[in-house]
């Protein structure tokens, strides 16, 4: 078939080419009449019955060949007329004698064009006459090409430049008339075939679309077409034709043409008309495409310059969209996938963000549209209206109630929808689910656009429909969105100035906060997911695997021979870990809320902290480990700046909560608190003892890692020393005992030794005074521990430590520590090292030893007191 077609085409073209010399000879000889005859024969090729098998594309080639020859003929006629040889007017009549209509009209247009060129007749007369005659060709393909030939021939001859408005209007009238007729033929082409050829025809029509669209282009290029002319004359007629042709491809394509071809100012001035036309379109029209074409165009325009932006705003662009678009969407909702509807809104949102950077309420309205659209179409998990949302927004119980409802819905839909075999239902459901996830993607895109544009959290909190918006999302996505809300804040400005705002923020990020507990009892919020799990079609981490179908597939592909089960399983685990990580990141984001709180008033800040704390606690204690630290820091800072024991107490309460899940942090916070308490002074001093005691308790009961224990104890020791002066001597004494005891109870001898060495600090400092007996006691215990160490190497190390510590204390004035035994430690160490092989560790220790010795030997008093003898 295809080969046959190309044969027909090339035959036709070669017949045309054969006639070319005939034409030229006739024209060269000045035989215009013969020229007419040959031209008719050439044009008749376009009418040949054989050509009916050709696709529009092939026909186009024949058309090109014909029009090339006809142009030559036309040019000769013009030249001959100018030379005074030919009456073009007579010729205009003569060519109408031609028997067949298609060649006749091609000739007529050619001569008509020559008439205009030689200015023998008014352009308008010729145009109008030709236009009338063109309707004789009703065959869609032939008609389209004929009218295209007309348009091409007249394009450069349209009255231009000096002319009256009436003239311009008439010209536009001609072009529009031709456009209308072309469109009708174009549309007819679709209906003009048996149903089984519909698809092919649609494809062919797409190939032809340019012919129809070029008329719109021609109008747009006319000089002198201003907005009022466009609005009153051009657009109404264009839209009337586009709407009344009742054909989706035409509506889609031509509307896009209009949007692309005319200037932005015109669109701004005629938004209502355009949108009204949208609402009348056929159901097959890709609504998103046309809306996006318009909004994207306007967005680009608005972002070009502030003046443009102003123009868009002055035209109340958004108001118009808001008034019309929901109606349009509503009308199309039954025919179009919801994803597409949402995308339409997304494109509106782009416009809003480009043209109205300050109008959060507009953004909010778009969110509302999205929600309403989802609510209006069934299958969504929303049951309550968006308006209710606002009133219940401060209710803490809100989300639990919500989820309960959803669960009910889910089970209802499961029982109602899945009576058939599980397999069928699930495959269907998977499809539906894929669509759902596409919807979610769009929604996430929408919200991330908003966040991208509005970095300021206080702006974001102006979104009244945010809650309703995220309620339509599945639980993991909700979390994601809530995290995004916090995440994309680049600078943490202190923008939360009242409790309501904070409360609101909590509600907004609730999915993140409430996550832990709720997720456990209701892992799958989406009714569909619920259903799937019921059917056993998906394993537990299905929401994620569906959402990321590609990686999973890829994973499966890796080892087709090995059983798929383990790989999926391991994937599931990593998935879980990833989820965990993602959640942790989310929690950290929540923690950062603290930085948003306005700190100008300490009282208010105090209340804020309280609220945060309460909220975080509600979120499940497990998460506190991530959320609390920043709050504790902030509280401590507040306590310090405000000098308030009240704030300190609140901080302590928080730290207390942290003990279980993050003991290390809790311990450090306790120690930190003591310092703050010390600087606050007064009644706050009472907390010092408490804190250190708590720290010790935490050390004993919660810290299991031995190294961490040592580290913590070291910290406790130094803190106790630092704040010791601020507490009663008795308390200090008992604390010291506890610390020494803790030190001596550490797991390894080595740790004990180190801790005890450190503990000497407690008894010899400027804060609490000196107690040489206790110092010696401590050192003794340390030495005992060191002696008990089995490893010679470690022992050497500890000896060196003890020696250093002792000499330090001696230099600080603690003469009681001067013992000969201590001096011998060096020699013992050296011997021990000598016994060991020359490893790098040994070498390092030897060096350390040498340093200590060298230091001591340079100090004669040390040498004397510790009976050190310089080596020979």
């Amino acid at each position, binding site marked *: 078939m295809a080969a046959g077609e190309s044969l027909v085409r090339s035959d036709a073209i070669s017949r045309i080419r054969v006639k070319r010399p005939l034409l030229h000879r006739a024209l060269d000889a000045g035989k215009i009449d013969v020229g007419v005859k040959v031209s008719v024969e050439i044009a008749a090729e376009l*009418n040949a019955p054989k050509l009916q098998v050709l696709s529009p594309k092939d026909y186009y080639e024949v058309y090109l060949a014909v029009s090339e020859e006809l142009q030559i003929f036309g040019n000769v006629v013009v030249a001959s007329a100018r030379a005074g040889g030919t009456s073009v007017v007579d010729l205009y*009549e003569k060519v*109408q*004698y031609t*028997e*067949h*209509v*298609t060649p*006749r009209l091609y000739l007529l247009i050619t001569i008509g064009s020559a008439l205009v060129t030689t200015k023998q007749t008014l352009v308008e007369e010729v145009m109008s006459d030709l236009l*009338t*005659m063109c*309707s*004789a*060709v*009703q*065959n*869609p393909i*032939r*008609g389209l090409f004929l009218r295209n030939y007309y348009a091409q021939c007249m394009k450069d001859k349209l009255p231009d430049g000096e002319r009256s408005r009436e003239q311009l209007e008439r010209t536009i009238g001609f072009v529009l008339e031709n456009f209308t007729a072309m469109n*009708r033929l174009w549309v*007819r082409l679709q*209906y*003009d075939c*048996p*149903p089984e050829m519909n698809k092919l025809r649609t494809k062919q029509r797409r190939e032809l679309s340019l012919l129809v669209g070029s008329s719109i282009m021609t109008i747009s290029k006319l000089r002198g077409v201003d907005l009022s002319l466009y609005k009153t004359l051009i657009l109404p007629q264009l839209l009337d034709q586009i709407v009344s042709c009742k054909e989706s491809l035409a509506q889609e394509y031509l509307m896009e043409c209009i949007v692309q071809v005319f200037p932005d100012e015109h669109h701004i001035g005629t938004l209502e008309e355009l949108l009204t036309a949208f609402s009348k379109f056929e159901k097959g029209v890709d609504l998103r495409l046309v809306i996006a074409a318009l909004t994207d165009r306007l967005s680009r325009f608005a972002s070009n310059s502030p003046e443009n932006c102003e123009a868009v705003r002055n035209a109340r662009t958004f108001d118009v969209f808001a008034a019309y678009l929901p109606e349009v969407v509503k009308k199309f909702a039954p025919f179009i996938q919801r994803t597409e509807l949402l995308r339409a809104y997304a494109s509106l949102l782009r416009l809003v963000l480009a043209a109205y950077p300050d109008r959060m309420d507009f953004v909010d309205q778009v969110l509302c549209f999205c929600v309403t659209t989802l609510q209006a179409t069934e299958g969504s998990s929303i049951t309550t209206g968006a308006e209710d949302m606002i009133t219940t927004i401060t209710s803490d119980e809100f989300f639990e109630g919500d989820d309960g409802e959803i669960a009910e819905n889910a089970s209802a839909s499961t029982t109602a929808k899945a009576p058939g075999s599980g397999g069928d239902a699930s495959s269907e459901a998977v499809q539906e689910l894929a669509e759902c996830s596409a919807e979610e993607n769009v929604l996430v895109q929408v919200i991330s656009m908003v966040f991208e544009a509005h970095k300021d959290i206080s702006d974001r909190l102006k979104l009244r429909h945010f809650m309703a918006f995220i309620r339509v999302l599945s639980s993991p996505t909700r979390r994601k969105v809530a995290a995004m809300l916090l995440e994309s804040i680049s600078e943490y400005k202190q923008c939360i100035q009242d409790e309501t705002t904070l409360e609101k923020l909590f509600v907004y990020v609730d999915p993140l906060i409430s996550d832990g507990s709720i997720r456990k009892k209701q892992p799958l919020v989406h009714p569909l997911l619920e259903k799937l799990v019921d059917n056993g079609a998906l394993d537990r981490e299905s929401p994620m695997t569906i959402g990321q179908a590609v990686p999973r597939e890829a994973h499966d592909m890796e080892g087709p021979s090995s059983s798929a089960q383990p790989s999926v399983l391991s994937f599931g685990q990593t998935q879980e870990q990833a989820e965990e990580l993602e959640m942790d990141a989310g929690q950290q984001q929540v923690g950062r809320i603290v930085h948003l709180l306005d700190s100008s008033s300490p009282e208010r800040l105090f209340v804020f902290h309280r609220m945060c704390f309460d909220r975080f606690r509600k979120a499940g204690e497990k998460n506190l480990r991530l959320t609390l630290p920043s709050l504790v820091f902030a509280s401590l800072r507040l306590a310090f700046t405000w000098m308030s024991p009240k704030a300190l107490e609140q901080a302590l309460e928080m730290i207390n909560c942290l003990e279980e899940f993050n003991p290390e942090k809790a311990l450090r916070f306790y120690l930190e608190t003591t310092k703050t308490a010390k600087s606050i002074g007064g009644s706050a001093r009472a907390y010092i003892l408490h804190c250190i005691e708590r720290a010790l308790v935490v050390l004993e009961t919660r810290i299991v890692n031995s190294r961490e224990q040592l580290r913590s104890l070291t910290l406790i020791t130094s803190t106790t020393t630092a704040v010791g002066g601020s507490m009663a001597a008795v308390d200090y004494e008992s604390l010291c005992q506890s610390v020494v005891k803790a030190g001596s109870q550490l797991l390894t001898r080595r740790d004990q030794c180190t801790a005890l060495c450190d503990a000497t600090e407690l008894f010899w400092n400027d804060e609490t005074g000196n107690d040489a007996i206790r110092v010696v006691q401590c050192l003794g215990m340390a030495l005992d521990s060191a002696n008990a160490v089995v490893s010679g190497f470690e022992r050497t190390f500890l000896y060196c430590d003890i020696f250093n510590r002792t000499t330090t204390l001696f230099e600080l004035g603690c003469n009681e520590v001067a013992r000969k035994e201590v001096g011998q430690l060096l020699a013992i160490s050296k011997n021990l090292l000598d016994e060991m092989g020359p490893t790098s560790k040994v070498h390092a220790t030897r060096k350390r030893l040498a340093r200590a010795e060298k230091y001591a030997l340079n100090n004669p008093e040390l040498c004397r007191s510790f009976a050190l003898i310089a080596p020979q």
Partner: protein
Amino acid sequence: MDAALSLFGLAQPCQISFALDGAQNRPYVKVVPPNAKGEEKQLPLYGHRDSVSGKVTVSVKEGKALQTLGVRIEFVGTIELLYDRDQNQEFVSLIRELDEPGVITGTKQYAFAFSDVEKAFDTYSGLNVQLRYFLRVTIQRPHTSPDFKKEFDISVQHTQPEPEINNSIRMEVGIEDVLHIEFDYDRSKYHTTDVVRGWIYFVLVRNQSSQTTAWDLRLPQGKLAFSPSNAGLRTVICYSDSFGKAKIKIKRMEIELKRKESAGPAGTNVHNETDTIGKFEVMDGAPVRSEKIPIRLFLSAYDSLTPTYRSVNNIFSVRYFLNLVLVDDADRRYFKQTEITLWRADPESIA
């Protein structure tokens, strides 16, 4: 021919030739004999009462003498029925004697004139009938010798004033529930180089609706499918198939220009002959409802047109019709014929 005849001594001993007065200034009319038999001729054109005058030259071959009983010239108008030569009718016959009986030698010229001779009809050359005007010179011969005769045709055309009443022709025709069209010719009377303008308006076209009904109008090919409207009342011949709904898919539409010639004196068998002078495609493809197709038919494209003749001397009539033909994709033809009246305008009045 003459040379061959002269060989046997049978060749005419004299030549007769005509020279009409003012022949150079007269327009000439091309006459194509019907059925393309014979040669095309260019004849001088005379008006209704134009005098026909001129000179006849008789030249006898050198050295010969031609004895005559007299020379005369006739002006004859005849209507000849080609199928029956017996019924030829001379409606004009005028005689002028040019010479006394005697002997003609050498070349002799005679002037003649038929002043204000009435030429009531146009010359016409049809399939079955011919209307001629001619001059005939007869050299009468004594005894049984055949007379020498020579005829010379002239053509006569009458111009007519523009008709005072000239209504448009408007009709509504169709096949019920399948196709309704309205057509409109701007006038009912056209001069022979006129332009027929008009519209065809498709009121209803069922050509692409349900595919369930097979298309079968059960019409013999070429049968009249449209009927004219009478006095504004639409009468529609209805054809429908057994399934109820019928469709028609029109492929193209053309207008045929037809001439109907009826010949034969009253009371005898009338010979009718219809002849399609021209076909003119006015539409290509299948229209949909409410399409309006223009008609513009240049009659000057057809040079054999005559005015409409109604009962010329009670012997023949020539009438013209526009036949609107719709051709469907099975090449069935639906047509509606409408008579138009042609008249001859004074070329100066329409210039």
